[in-house]
């Protein structure tokens, strides 16, 4: 260690009380920026966004003024601001970031399509007023490689298309065509909702229909939805509903598809769920990588409220800030409360003590999407359809995208029947059945049914049904390194097995010859002792590689 000589100095200055002082001008700017918005602590991240959006960074002076304005301490705001990747905190004497940021996705699907080369080239070709940084999966794997210029996604990005976009100044998110309130209503939307409010359905009936449909949570954990709703029974009120729209698992983009095409199916589902479990407020936590989805939801929620369609249920749209971990349901709750996204220890479970300490139902976007159809149709309908849901398929296939298919479909069927086969010149070699954390399977396991629990014996799971297809040209080591690097970067850092484990594991797999015993020992502890699924599953790709790809490694 490099200890500096001891310096028992007195306080630097007695001209002020201790510590950083509030700057009057910064205080006035913050006060004006926040306007009449409440200064509640749970809005900290929203307020940080206001500053970042307005000034393109968050200066220490503004941050100190914000703390004072919100009656928080400096440490309390700083630790939150620095937790999230989308806030650029700039201390006194540090240089501010350029006005424009280009984020190049280095998620696995983009990486295999040349993200690193793009980053390197862009770094050389753009000027000092532009910053090019890698970013974790932005949820557009079907258009890899992807760069985000300001808030504008450039699909199949090249140095030229990205540079042109940066020069054009057109850097706001593009809003896709989608089914708005009027379309949705014309299509029979909200009839079920009104029927429920009019007493044509009982709460218990709706819950039992959802339970019997066999619908399982589509955020990744696959917990039976109706059972989850039942947990709220007999819990004290007020109760809350939180919708997880923080789709961050690399390779996953189906929630984006749902919101960007049919947002009211999500909203009606959420209202039905809130009604069924008697929740008074709904919080939708949306990842910051989907600015177009935010605009859509803002507009459509506003419309719903204008039409007085919510039966007094309050809808809040909350904005993430670039943290994969906030897709973990309890970390999401922390983030909605304005804190660092640290997963909570369980018990207590959210149904007992969730958001703001209240009993809380947490459901994924797509899960809500299916509620209307399940309740509208006859009992058994969803089962008869084969429990369909959306698969996000990307990688070396001809037509990647969101695929609607029944549970239990195999990757080979997805490739051949839905994605136009493999890309020319590529042979199916391996695949991720469930994003970054679900493990890696070889092509000879390509006929396994993709369903909850069906891959357990192979040490894998389908999670959010994010299927990434690799060919013989993709290196398993590189894939492992990409995925591990992602986990190391996105670990919240709270618990030892994950914080230190990911870092040490990344070092171990960089070695020319893997120390398999040590990797196995470490993986056991990461799985057994980490607080949440990130740490528990982070070693999965490495374990799969050892198990199935011994030849590729040597």
């Amino acid at each position: 260690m490099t200890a500096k000589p001891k310096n028992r100095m007195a306080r630097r200055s007695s001209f002020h009380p201790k510590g950083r002082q509030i700057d009057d001008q910064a205080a006035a700017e913050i006060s004006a920026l926040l306007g009449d918005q409440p200064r509640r602590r749970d809005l900290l991240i929203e307020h940080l966004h206001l500053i970042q959006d307005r000034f393109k960074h968050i200066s220490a002076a503004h941050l100190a003024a914000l703390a004072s304005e919100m009656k928080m301490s400096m440490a309390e705001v700083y630790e939150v601001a620095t937790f999230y990747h989308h806030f650029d905190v700039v201390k006194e004497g540090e240089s501010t970031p350029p006005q424009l940021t280009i984020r190049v996705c280095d998620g696995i699907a983009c990486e295999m399509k040349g993200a690193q080369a793009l980053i390197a080239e862009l770094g050389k070709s753009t000027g000092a007023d532009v910053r090019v940084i890698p970013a974790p999966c932005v949820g557009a794997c079907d258009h890899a490689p992807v760069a985000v210029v300001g808030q504008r996604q450039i699909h199949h990005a090249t140095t030229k298309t990205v540079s042109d976009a940066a020069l054009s100044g057109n850097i706001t998110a593009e809003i896709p065509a989608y089914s708005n309130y009027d379309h949705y209503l014309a299509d029979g939307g909200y009839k079920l909702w009104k029927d429920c409010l009019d007493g044509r359905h009982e709460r218990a009936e709706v819950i039992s229909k959802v339970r019997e449909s066999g619908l399982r949570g589509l955020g990744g954990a696959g917990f039976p939805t109706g059972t989850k709703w039942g947990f709220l029974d007999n819990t004290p009120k007020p109760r809350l509903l939180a919708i997880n729209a923080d789709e961050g698992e690399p390779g996953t983009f189906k929630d984006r598809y749902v919101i960007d095409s049919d947002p009211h199916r999500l909203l009606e589902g959420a209202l039905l769920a809130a009604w069924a479990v008697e929740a008074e407020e709904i919080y939708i936590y949306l990842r910051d990588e989907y600015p177009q989805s935010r605009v859509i939801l803002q507009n459509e929620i506003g419309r719903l409220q204008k039409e007085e369609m919510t039966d007094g249920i309050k809808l809040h749209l909350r904005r993430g800030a670039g943290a994969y971990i906030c897709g973990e349901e309890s970390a999401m709750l922390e983030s909605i409360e304005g804190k660092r996204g640290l997963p909570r220890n369980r018990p207590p479970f959210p149904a007992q003590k969730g958001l703001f300490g209240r009993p809380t139902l947490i459901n994924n976007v797509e899960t809500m999407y299916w509620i209307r159809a399940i309740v509208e149709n006859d009992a058994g309908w969803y089962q008869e359809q084969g429990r369909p849901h959306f698969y996000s398929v990307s990688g070396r296939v001809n037509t990647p995208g969101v695929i609607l298919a029944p549970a239990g479909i195999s990757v080979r069927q997805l490739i051949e029947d839905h994605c136009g086969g493999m890309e020319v010149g590529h042979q199916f070699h391996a695949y991720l059945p469930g994003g970054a954390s679900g493990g890696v399977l070889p092509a000879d396991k390509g006929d396994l049914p993709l369903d909850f629990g069906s891959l357990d014996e192979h040490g894998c799971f389908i999670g959010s049904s994010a299927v990434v297809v690799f060919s013989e040209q993709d290196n398993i080591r590189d894939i492992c390194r990409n995925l591990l690097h992602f986990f190391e970067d996105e670990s919240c850092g709270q618990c030892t097995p994950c914080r230190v484990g990911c870092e040490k594991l990344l070092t171990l797999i960089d070695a020319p010859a893997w120390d398999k015993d040590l990797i196995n020992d470490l993986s056991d502890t990461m799985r057994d002792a980490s607080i949440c699924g990130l740490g528990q599953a982070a070693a999965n790709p490495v374990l799969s590689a050892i198990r199935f790809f011994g030849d590729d490694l040597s």
Partner: protein
Amino acid sequence: MSAIIKFTLDDQEVTAAPGETIWDISKRLGTTIPHLCHRDEPGYRADANCRACMVEIKGERVLAPSCRREPTEGMTVTTTSERATKSRNMVLELLLADQPDRQQAHDPDSLLWKWMDNANLSTSRFAAETAVPDADTTHNAMAVNLDACIHCNLCVRACREVQVNDVIGMAHRGSHSKIIFDFGDPMGDSTCVACGECVQVCPTGALMPSVVLDDQQVHTGKADRHVHSLCPYCGVGCQMTYHIKDDKIQHVDGRAGPSNENRLCVKGRYGFDYISHPHRLSKPLVRRDDAPKDPKEKLDPLNPYTHFREATWEEALDKAGSGFASIRDRDGYQALAGFGSAKGSNEEAYLVQKLVRQGFGTNNVDHCTRLCHASSVAALMEGINSGAVSAPFAAAKDADCIIVIGARPNQNHPVAASFIKNAAKRGATLIVMDPRGQGLTRHATHMLQFKAGSDVALLNAMIHTIIEEGLTDVQFVQGYTEGFDDIKEGVKDFSPEKMSKVCGIDAETIRTVARTYATAERSIIFWGMGISQHVHGTDNARCLIALSLITGQVGRPGTGLHPLRGQNNVQGASDAGLIPMFYPDYKLVTNDNPRTTYEDHWGKELDRERGLTVVEIMDAVHNDQIKGIYVMGENPAMSDPDAGHARQALAKLEHLVVQDIFLTETAMLADVILPASAFAEKTGTFTNTNRQVQLGRQVVSPPGDARQDWWIIQEIANRIGLNWSYTHPKDVFAEMRLTMHSLNGITWERLEREDVVTYPCDSEDQPGHDVIFSDGFPTATGRAKLVPTTLIPPDETPDDAYPIILTTGRVLEHWHTGAMTRRSDVLNGQEPEPFASLNPFQMGQLGIGPGDTIRVESRRGSVNLKARADRDIPDGMVFIPFCYHEAAANLLTNPQLDPVGKIPEFKFCAVKVEPIKSAQDAAE
């Protein structure tokens, strides 16, 4: 709560109480499961982040953290399974990889190393992280070496959830997570208040007291013994453990006393080194014949020999005693007076008042309570016949509504403040009333920055609201009070709408706050010198008493009246009779009954008149009535208002004997100086603000020829005709128990055993009563008296010549007149020079910049000092702490007294403030 839970722990059928965790139960049964982030002490929530305590639960997919997990009926838990053990050891091995080498460790005996030893781990199979953070040695008390940090978050919980100073955070994420101060600032530049809680709880040595590390940040060796004792500073009375190496105090830790629950503040934790300061007096001194007393002259405490010469104890004591005896015999007993100290023990206080009453023959005995809470005590005695708090400050835990008025506990009672902040965090309504913003402001539900000196207007408007809106507790008023109609009549003209202009708080806020206080299930009031140090101090306290009485907010858990007592033993010294109008236990000296009792005990006829108070004694010196004063551990030359006047009085005395540990400004004017023992050098009992009588134990020996105070007092007594023969403080304590009802059930032996007993206490085998007045008041009628008040403005209001209000007080790091804390390296390093705080806007108007030298002048004197820009100060006010002898605030203050409590108006006088433009200006 649910009943007892039965479950299986390592093949044993065991039971758990609700709320008990697996870790707790295992510990109770004799096995401590490894733990790093878990601290098994009050106030610390199990966070379960280190994962060193994992156990296996049958049927669960993954392991569970035992520190947090509560068993359920029928659960099967294995702590010793291979899987659990392997996981726990792997966690340790991961952490070990990035630790500094043990031979170079900041703390080789840390909790972390203990568990490494337990797991037989000395090396890790993992490569160390390459980026190692540098040491942060910018703070003068604590060293930050994050190379040893394991991110256990204990320091964050210490700073945020226990002490609620909110300086430490965990910033960034993942393997980049980092402990930060404020915005990742160097600790010494941050808002850190150096309570040191983080250092006390750090399990790795990443945070350490600087004094135990060498220049390379390596530990310099363990202490060789430790002693459990108390903190010498404020009325909170924190228990602590002194660690001693080579007969010097190395460092201290907080202990789980009832008032502090292991917590300390910067003074208690780092302010112990004053006892070995070179200024320490270690030989008796007598004034040289060629050295006249000059009240304006400042002596060099390092070299008292310009004015004094060394003497033997025999000579010094003879001179001290004969001086008093000859004045007494020549001019009568009224020519003598004595000051005791609220810093001394109960036994010393008792002996000082006994010496003055029995030996001098007068009731002219007082101490600094006169300058602190005399008016509060006067109002409390008048209203409820008890001067003590009705509930401990920890009652904040149970309160729904807390009012803090005229008190800045963050600075002056930091550990008490932490309990108030804990309550606010829990969701209690906190109402802070103070003309200045302060540390509690951020936590307050309502912050009422009212106009200085308008307390009565604000408080009567609250009483008015409560009565007008029918929010009184009718049953309580009828059952336990008298004089309600007088109060009702008295506040008629005090509507919030009318008083709003007087106090500067809008009427609706006054009403809201009044309603909140009155209608909360449990409300408690804390107050400090901002209430008492006014010419209307007694009225201020009367209003607070009335507020609690008319709403029945007293006598139940979470309710009450709590004047935060200043000195560590101001409660005890007052109880022991160090007051001119009272014998011990507040027995009036003018009543025959207690007097004859003491005359019997002490074998002498006693003074029948009430004695003079502190400021009155100084006036009596100027009037040639008083000729000789004995000062034990007080510093009136610094602490009295209009200190110039007080110093002239002291210089004029024919015989001044000062018993102290330093050459204080008072001692500079003495005839005889007797070198005494510091707190850590003596044994005795001390009574804190909560009425908790605690045992302070001797930690180290006094230096040189310095002696125990009780011994010195006895030697003087025996030279003025008394015949005392105490051999130990416990003999004195035993004598006190003969006449002091308040010490019922509290024996010396019990204190040796239990460290602390609260009074009143029914018997030796019962705990004392924390909350009193649950069934009426100790008055003749059992009823409390409601006393109406009127508006009395401050004595000296601003005018054209002196347009700014001066208010005085303390700073966190300095105690009282600074005699101790200015001589502590850490404390003085934190606040090394005098300053005057002003609002930055006002400074701009006056043409003053931060750090500029300014002159503050009142009708009584002037001081030059640096200006500090502080947004907490309202316009039209300047604040000066009174701890700096270089620019003594009390040269400016107004000696005008409250007519009842006889307390001076330290909190309000008129001054002018000017920039000093040239060196010549400064010299003037």
